[in-house]
C-alpha cells in the first residue's frame, strides 16, 4: 500500500543522449528513466517499485522540441505536453494530437509531463498501483477480474490474465496519425510504428511497450500522411480534468466527392493497447457519412467486446463515440 515516502536512490542527470545511453548500459535493469516524473515518483513514493539508479532525462536538450521535416514533424520525447498542445504547426496540421494532448491530466501536469512519459506510462489498474501481487506485478492472480473485482475502468478486449487498459489519451492519436517511435540504445536507433509499439499482456504482461531494458524513446515522427485531415478527438472521463479516460476516440479522415476516401480510427481505455478500429474504417471507407453508416460502424466497433462485471457501459459508450466521430 502507498507509503508516500521515497526510498533513497542514486540520481543521474545526463546532459546528452550518449551519456544517458551509457548510464543505461552500465546499470541495465537496475536503472529507471525519469521524464516528467508523474508516473515514476508515484511508484517510488508508494515503495511499490524500487530503482537503484534513476536517470533523469530533463537535462538532455536534444530530446526536447518539435521540428518540421520534409516527411512531417518529429517531436522529441522530452517535449512537454503543453508545448505540443500550443505548437502552431501541430494545431494547424495535426490538431488531433493537440486536441488529445489538451485533455491529458491537468494543466499543471501537462506543463511538466512529457510526450514520452505519457506514451510510456504504466498501467493504471488501481489494484496494480495499490501494490498487490497481481500477474502484472509478477504474482499469480488478477484481483480485478473476479466476481467482486472493482473493474469499472478495465478492458473490453485483450484480457490475458491482466485486464488493465492503455490509459493514454495520446497513444490512440499516434496510432491514427501513423506515427513512428524512434528508440535508441547503445546499439543504435530503431524505429517502430506506433501501432506495434504498444503491447498487451499476451506478449509481455509486465510492460506495455516494446521498449527493452537499455532502450529509451527519443522521438516520435509523424508523417505527412494525415496532415490537414479532418480530425476528431473525444475523451469521456469522470472529470473534465485530472482524470484518465473511461473511453477516448481518435479519428483522421479525408472526404472526396462526398464519400470517405481515407479514414483511420482508434480508441483508448478499452484494451491494453490503443485499439485500432479497423473494421469501422472498412465500413466507412468509400461510404457517405450518414446516420446509417455511423450506426453500422458503431455496431462493428463493439464486435467481440467482452465486458467484466462493472464495465459494460463502455460498450454503448464506445458505440456512441464512434457515431459522434462519424457525424462530426
Amino acid at each position, binding site marked *: *500500500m*502507498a*507509503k*508516500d*515516502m*521515497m*526510498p*533513497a536512490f542514486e540520481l543521474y542527470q545526463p546532459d546528452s543522449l550518449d551519456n544517458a545511453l551509457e548510464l543505461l548500459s552500465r546499470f541495465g535493469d537496475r536503472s529507471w528513466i525519469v521524464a516528467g516524473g508523474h508516473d515514476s515518483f508515484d511508484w517510488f513514493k508508494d*515503495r511499490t517499485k524500487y530503482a537503484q539508479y534513476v536517470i533523469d532525462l530533463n537535462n538532455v536538450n536534444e530530446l526536447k522540441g518539435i521540428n518540421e521535416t520534409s516527411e512531417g514533424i518529429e517531436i522529441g520525447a522530452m517535449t512537454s505536453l503543453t508545448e505540443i498542445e500550443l505548437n502552431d504547426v501541430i494545431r494547424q496540421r495535426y490538431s488531433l494530437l493537440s486536441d488529445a494532448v489538451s485533455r491529458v491530466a*491537468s494543466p499543471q501536469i501537462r506543463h511538466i509531463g512529457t510526450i514520452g512519459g505519457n506514451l510510456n506510462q504504466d498501467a493504471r489498474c*488501481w*489494484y496494480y498501483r*495499490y501494490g*498487490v501481487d497481481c500477474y502484472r506485478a509478477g504474482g499469480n492472480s488478477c*484481483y480485478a477480474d*473476479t*466476481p*467482486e*473485482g*472493482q*473493474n*469499472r*475502468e478495465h478492458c473490453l478486449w485483450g484480457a490475458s490474465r491482466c485486464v488493465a487498459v492503455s490509459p493514454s489519451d495520446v497513444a490512440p492519436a499516434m496510432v491514427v496519425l501513423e506515427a513512428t517511435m524512434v528508440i535508441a540504445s547503445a546499439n543504435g536507433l530503431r524505429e517502430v510504428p506506433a501501432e506495434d509499439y504498444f503491447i498487451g499482456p499476451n506478449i509481455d504482461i509486465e510492460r506495455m511497450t516494446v521498449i527493452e531494458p537499455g532502450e529509451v524513446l527519443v522521438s516520435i515522427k509523424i508523417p505527412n500522411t494525415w496532415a490537414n485531415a479532418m480530425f476528431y478527438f*473525444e475523451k*469521456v472521463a*469522470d*472529470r*473534465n*480534468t*485530472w*482524470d484518465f479516460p*473511461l473511453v477516448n476516440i481518435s479519428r483522421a479522415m479525408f472526404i472526396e466527392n462526398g464519400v470517405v476516401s481515407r479514414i483511420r480510427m482508434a480508441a483508448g481505455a478499452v484494451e491494453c493497447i490503443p485499439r485500432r478500429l479497423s473494421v469501422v474504417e472498412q465500413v466507412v471507407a468509400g461510404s457517405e457519412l450518414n446516420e446509417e453508416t455511423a450506426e453500422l460502424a458503431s455496431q462493428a466497433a463493439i464486435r467481440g467486446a467482452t465486458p467484466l*462485471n*462493472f*464495465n*459494460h*457501459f463502455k*460498450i*454503448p*459508450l464506445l458505440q*456512441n*463515440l464512434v*457515431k*459522434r466521430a462519424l457525424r462530426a
Partner: protein
Amino acid sequence: MAFNLIGKNFTPPDIYAKVTGKAKYAEDFKVEGMVFCRLLTSTIPHARVSNINLDEALSMPGVLGVLTADEVTDTDIMDNPILTNHPKFIGQPILAVAAESEQIAQDAIEKISFAIEALPFTVDPLESLFPGGPNARMEGNVANPGIEPEEVKWQVSDFVAAGENHLPMGSPSREWSYGDLDNAFASSVYILEESFVTQGLSHNSMEPRTALAYWDGDKCILHASSQSQSFPHPGVASYIGIAPENLVFIAEFCGGGFGSKGGAYPYVAIPALMSKKINRPVMMRISRNEEALIGSARPGFQGRARLGFDQNGKMLAADLYIVQDNGPTNGFNDWLSAGDALSLVYTPNAMRFRGIPVLTNTPHRGPQRGPGQNQIANAIEPMIDKAARELNIDPLAIRKINAPNNYSKYGGAQTSVTSAYLSEALDQGAEMFNWNERRQRSGQRNGSKVTGIGIGTAYHSAGSNGFDGLLRIDTDGILHIHTGVGNLGTYSHTSTSRVAAEVLGYSWDRCVVERGDSSKGLPWNLGQFGSNTSFTMTRTNYAAAQDAVIKIKQLAALRLGGSIEDYELQNERVQHFNDLNLSLSFAEVAQIAIDEGGSYSGLTYPDEINPMTKRAVGHLAGSGLIGVGRDNLARSGSVAALAAGFIEIELDLETGDWEIKDYVGIADCGTVLHPLGLSHQVKGGAVMGIGLAGYERHIYDPQNGLPAHLGLCHSKLPTYLDVPSEMRWGAVALEDPENPVGAKGIGEPVQGCASAALLCAISDALGGHLFNRTPVVKDMIINFTAGQEQSYGPLQISSA
C-alpha cells in the same frame, strides 16, 4: 436592527497570510532538534498483531524510538484508538517509529517484523446483518454513541421478504414515530416506496492531520490541524494523558476539516507521546493516502423510504429505514439526523423512523458537512420530484406546501425550531432563477443534449448555547476579542467577534481578534462544526460585551460620580448623559479597571464560566478591562438552518456528461453577518455538493477489503474545471428571534441543497428516472440511456 459592523464585508485578518503562502500550518513549523515519526499501518482490514520484533529497526542508524499501542493512553473500547494491535480497517496505525528523517523512519518500518492474524471482515452492513455474516469486530456488529456494541443478525425471512430490489428491514436499533402512520398512508392518494444507497465519503481534507509536538517541562506544546480551537483542547489533553492546563494547543490555520477535525482526534497524541518518550520535538507528517484512511469518512446509507401524499402534494406519511455503514468504531449519528431532517424539511403529518448502525472494516466514520441531513436530502429530493410528477404538481409548489415554518415541530421528540424560512428561501430562489420560465426548458433537446432542471432543499440544526465570551480593552483602548473559534476557512472567528465590537461601538480598525493559540488566553467555545458558530458565538461575544458595557459604566460612575444609568457609550468613550465634561476614554477606563482590580481586570470572575475560560481570564488578569460571560440567553428550540438550491444542467445522453448552466443557492441563515463570507459558504458548499452528487468516490473491493479511492485523483473530487465559474446566491435575511443579532448558521445545508438539486436535475433530464443512489456517475447514465442493466444491485455498496 441597524448595525455598523454586522452585515458589512471586512478583510479577514488572516487572509493575507493565506493568499501569500505565509500562513503557517502545523507542517510549516520547525523547532530545534526536531525529528520525524512515521506510522506502521494495517494492510488488512481486520487483524490481530502480535510478536512485534523491533530489534532490527531500532538498531538502524538514525532511528530514535518506537511507540507501540501498549504505550499510549487508553481510550474507550469503541472509540478510535491512538494506536492498536487490533486494527479494524486498512490504514489504521499500529505503531510509530521516530528517526532523524522520514526516510529512515520508513526504512525502519520495513524492518519491523510481526505476526498478523487475519480476522473476518466486512465492508457491507447488509452482509454483516445476514445470518452467519461476518462481524467487523469481536464485540459485535452494531454500535453507535449510546448503543453498546452488540451482535445483531436479522432473519433470513427479512431478506427474503424484501427481495433483491428493496432494503430488508429487520429489527432496528432505534425507532420513533409520531402521528397515526397507518391512517396517514390510508389517506394518501399517492404512495411511493424506494430503496436507496448513499455512498460514504472520505473527508479528504486538503491539509492532512500533521502534528508537531514538544515539551517544556510538564507542558506539551502541540501544533495541530484542527478546525476548532477551544473545543478539542480537553480531549486532546486527555489523549496525551495530561491536564488541559498543561497543553498549549496551537491551530491558527486549518487546511480543511469538513467535520473530521471538529473535535479531538486521537492521532495528534502520537507525536506528543513520542516526543515525551525520546525527549526530542517530533513532527508527524501525515501523507495524502494516510489522510484518506485515518481522516475519517461520512457514513454511507442503505435506506428505504415510503412516502404518502395527498392530491395537493402535502406529505401525509413518511416511513424511513436507514442502515448506516458505521465503520469499525462508535461512528456518528448521521442515521438519526437523517430521520429528523426528513421530518423537518417535509413536515409529514405522521412519521416513523427506524434505523441501525452497522459496523464495517472501513475507516472511522465521523461527521462530514451535513451529517445525515445531506445524505437524506440526496435520497429524498428526487423522490419528491417523482411524487410531483405523478400528482402533476410543480416541483417548487410541492416543496413549498411541505416546507416548515416557525411553528413546525420535528422528529420523535417533536422538537420546535427557533425560526424556519424555507418557503421564503424557495420563493427568493425561484425569482432569482426565474423558475417558471426555466421550468419550461425541462427536457428540451439540443442534439444529444437534454436540459434538466432541479430544486434541492436541505436542513441542519445550526446553533447552540451555554459557552463563554471573553474580551479585553487594553490601556491604549484597543479591544482584544478572544475567541476559541477555530479557523475552518469561514472567517467566522472574526465575523462573530465583530458582535462584541458592535455592542461596544468600536471602530473595527481598533479591534484585534485573539485566536489560534491557547496560550493567548481563549475562552471555552463550541467547536467550529455543525453550522453553529454564527449563532453560538455571536451570543458568547454578546455576553462578554454586555459584561464589558456594565463594567465600563460602573467604572465611570465610580470615578466620575452618578450611577451607571447616567452613562452611555459613544465613540469609544463612556459619556455622562447630561454632562459632557464627565467622560472617559476606553483607554482611561482600562487603566481604572487595572487600578480597581477585582472582576474589572479579571482578578475575579464568575463561577459559572468554564474552567478553560477561568484560566484564560487568569492569564489576562491585570492587563486591562475584562469582559467575560457565559451565554445564558434563552434557546427554546433547534436553530434551523435551511437552504434551497436551483440548478439547470445540460446532459449529454450519449456520453453521460453534464454541464451546470446555472446555479442559485439561497440561505435561511437569519441576519447576514458577513456577506462575502456567506457567498463563499453558499458557493463552496455547492461545489462540495456537486462532488457529493456527481463525482466523489469511496470504493472498496469487497473480496479483499481494499480501498480503491486513495489520493485526491482516485477520490475524484470535482476540480475547478468541473464546476461553474459563476454561481449566484442570496439570503432570506429574516432574523432569528433567539439570537441577539438575529443570526444563525448555514454551512451545511448549502451543500445538501446543491447536491440534491443536481440529482433532481439529472433525474429531470432523464425523464424522471431515479437512480436512488449517490453519486450518479457517467457509467450509470450511459447504462440507463442505453437501456442496459446497471452494474450494481440496487442495494449494493462499494460498486465501481
